[in-house]
């Protein structure tokens, strides 16, 4: 009995158990503090939908063997450029969102290909190099945001100041376009069916892809590169496919995020955006070598639930300072650190 219990815990993952216990404590204290449960639950759903695609972007990169995609900002910036261009073209509503996605995806395919070529040259060190590739692309783009010749009054400073604003409001372009679509308030919870449906379609797509011939080849490269080579699969090619997919999902993910947040964040904002996504999929039970859609959904839900509930609870307990932000830093970085110490082997 005891051994079976231990085996169950090992399979389930310590991190997940710790997070679930912590979340449980927070929820109980939320009840005890008589916080608005309805707004908390609805908040969890919206935040989960908002972040799901960014977490999903980790799946192809893990499956193809390049590990956690710390270079996610590369994809994110493609999406941001797509959005900026669609605003510059004076599009609004669904058209703007669609155009931003099309441009973002096209850019992400190119950027993902180049990024994939880079990762193929630095095998075993993809995560480290990816982190710094992402960081340098973000700071390189900062120069672009200042110097870019955009004239749209929605994006430049109202008076004086050069370059684009730090945050661009999406209110009269595509802000909330998915959140408002099929939004249904119920007695206990508000469910954004449109947002959840949209992101779940992409989860389904990635799931179907992993069942396709290319998808299986890609996973073989990730899990057993020698066998893949013997079977005549191009290792480098499949890794590039995985990286492109991950980058494309990053681009689409940031657009979902931005429409829900209501603002497009430029300059240094994308710098650390890979870390919450990485933490989320690890909380879901993924490792550096193995990830599935279930990990994405469970992980994003747990991580976002934790953040949503922690904020009002900690504020009620300790109004001074920003305890929930500190807790977020400790949890997300702690979980990534834990996963890194469990890779084992090395080279």
């Amino acid at each position, binding site marked *: 009995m005891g051994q079976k219990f231990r085996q169950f815990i090992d399979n389930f993952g310590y991190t997940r158990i710790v997070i679930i216990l912590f979340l449980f404590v927070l929820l109980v204290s939320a009840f005890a503090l008589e916080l608005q449960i309805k707004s908390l639950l609805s908040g969890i759903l919206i935040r989960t939908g908002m972040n799901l695609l960014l977490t999903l972007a980790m799946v192809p990169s893990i499956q193809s063997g390049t590990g956690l995609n710390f270079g996610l900002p590369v994809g994110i910036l493609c999406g941001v450029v797509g959005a900026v261009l669609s605003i510059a073209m004076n599009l609004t509503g669904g058209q703007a969102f669609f155009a931003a996605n099309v441009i973002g995806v096209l850019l992400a395919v190119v950027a993902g290909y180049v990024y994939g070529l880079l990762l193929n040259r630095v095998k*075993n060190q993809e995560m480290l*190099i990816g982190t710094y590739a992402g960081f340098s692309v973000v700071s390189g783009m900062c120069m672009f945001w200042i110097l870019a010749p955009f004239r749209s009054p929605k994006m430049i400073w109202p008076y004086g100041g050069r370059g684009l604003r730090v945050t661009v409001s999406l209110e009269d372009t595509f802000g909330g376009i998915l959140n408002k679509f099929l939004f249904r308030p119920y007695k206990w919870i508000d469910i954004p069916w449109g947002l959840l449906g949209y992101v779940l379609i992409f989860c389904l797509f990635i799931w179907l892809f992993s069942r396709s011939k290319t998808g299986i080849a890609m996973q073989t490269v990730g899990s057993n590169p020698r066998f893949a080579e013997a079977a005549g699969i191009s290792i480098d090619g499949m890794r590039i496919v995985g990286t492109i997919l991950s980058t494309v999902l990053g681009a689409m993910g940031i657009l979902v995020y931005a429409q829900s947040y209501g603002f497009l964040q430029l300059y240094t904002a994308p710098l650390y955006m890979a870390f919450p996504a990485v933490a989320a999929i690890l909380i879901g039970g993924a490792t550096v070598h193995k990830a599935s859609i279930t990990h994405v959904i469970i992980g994003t839900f747990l991580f976002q639930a934790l953040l949503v509930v922690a904020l009002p609870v900690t504020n009620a307990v300790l109004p001074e300072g920003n305890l929930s932000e500190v807790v977020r830093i400790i949890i997300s970085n702690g979980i990534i650190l834990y996963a890194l110490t469990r890779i084992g082997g090395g080279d």
Partner: protein
Amino acid sequence: MKNAEIKTQQKRMQFMPDIKKGLIRNIVPVVFAVLCIIGACIAQARPLFLLSSVTIRMARNLLLVFSLIIPVVTGLGLNFGIVLGAMAAQIALVAVTHWEITGISGFIVTALLSVPLSIFFGWLTGRILNRAKGNEMITSMMLGFFANGLYQLLFLFVLGGIIPMVNKTIMLPSGIGIKNTVALRGLKYALDNVIKIEYDDLIIPIFTFIVIAVMALAIKFLLQTKLGQELRCVGQDMNIAEASGIDVDKMRITAVILSTILAAWGQLIHLQNIGILQTYGSHEQVGLFAVASILIGGATVTKATIGQAILGTFLFHSLFIISPMAGQKLVGEPQVGEYFRAFVAYGVIGLSLGLHAWQKQQAARNKFEE
């Protein structure tokens, strides 16, 4: 006559590859030196101003950059975890500011106090890095981020919240947590002021440079001793070191502890010159800037020397001063220059780590094919 011509030509041909080889071997510092010179020409900066700014920044940062050398020699790569050393220094600084010990004695107390803290932090870092062999650099980077969370927890909530601490000048008005900026009035220039030369704008903190030089010699000496030999042996090949009876894990932990202590002292020298502690920001970029500096000096993941550290610190901080000025002149926007130097810092780390990984991969492939 013809013979002589051929001979000179031969000589030249022998000589040319030497220059070419030297250039290729030192391509990174050469590129950055060229960048600095171009930037300085564009910015039209006064040489004396440049010289004095670079001198101060060298005094502030050299020891932090030196602290990276020992882990590189031991094969741990670039230790982004020196952030923890900086944190140890800042914890000691807050304590000493709280006790109001000033001047050089205050500085010495802080330096001593930071040692047990950094031994503890270094021991923890070393143990974690031993569990992540082959991924030390990204692990040490994530460890820095993680430790930053714990550091904020300590300074924002534990001090005054759980550990009672009453001091109006450094605590937030609520009595819980340390202020965002703590003025280090008693410690400002504590080390610099012992001996320094002032000439017009140029200030040379001679004593600080002497301390830094002593540290550099100490590192050099340490690497010659038996301990140093063992560290180097671990760095060359862990399996061989293990076979020859060296406790590899212990050596790696020792290297990280030494690095963390040096980083703590480095951060102290840095902050006594600035005179203000940004409680929640001073340590954040320490690892990034130090690593970028040593790489610009031509160091790699497996090889780093004092000379490379000095050259790199000089070039990196010259670029740091010049690029906003050049940005101002070139496009009328100093911000462009600031983003440019962030781009350079991140880019040079990515590029040189990437090149190293690529070379390693190719070497492995060549070996396989043989």
